């Protein structure tokens, strides 16, 4: 079963981003400079793959939380 869980960027240092998942934070690599602190993103294989609109991200996080 495969789900894409969004996290929120809380820090950026060059190519490195810290992504907050609520219960934990993970480091991920940024592929370009378009990402900003506060963006909701999808991380795969430790790289930031995509930006997700806030509304959609919050919906997904809510759905995810209800599974736990």
């Amino acid at each position: 079963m495969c789900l894409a869980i969004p996290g929120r960027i809380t820090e950026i240092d060059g190519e490195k981003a810290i992504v907050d998942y609520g219960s934990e934070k993970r480091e991920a690599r940024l592929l370009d400079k378009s990402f900003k602190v506060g963006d909701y993103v999808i991380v795969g294989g430790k790289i930031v793959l995509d930006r997700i609109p806030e509304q959609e991200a919050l919906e997904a996080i809510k759905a995810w939380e209800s599974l736990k």
Partner: protein
Amino acid sequence: MRVEKYFLRYAFPCAFVIRARDEIDDAAYSELEDAAVKGKLIARDKLEKIFHRAFAEISRIAREKGKNKWDPSVIRHYFLNEHNKIIDRREGSYRNFPPALCELSKVLVGESIEKNNDVLSVKIKDKTRRVLNHFAPEAKAGDKVTVHYGYAVEVVD
């Protein structure tokens, strides 16, 4: 390629979620990643236990086809044909997820249009996605590849 490795390359992108569900710990997650990238073998019973949701489906397909669940054609059929149907039916965990996120979780075929170190840009339908090439380092621009979440999995015809 050993079928265990082939399975793991398609299944590993889901391991992040299994980790997030606390079904495996960080060490087990790293072991899976290592095995998927470097090809270290993980026993079949261990893989079946970790990816039990996938194997519930794979076992059903195997029964229908009269084949062993570890037959490469059964594993391939699951990931290329059945995995996305589960998402489209919005069963179980997928029920409340926004469509854009469900789309990322599917196994899709696209055309690799650019390679930049270990990142491939893959055109899927009208969108370009960037994915890691760790499981398909041989993929080059122009190749058709399968993509699962953040990974290119294999070059296909």
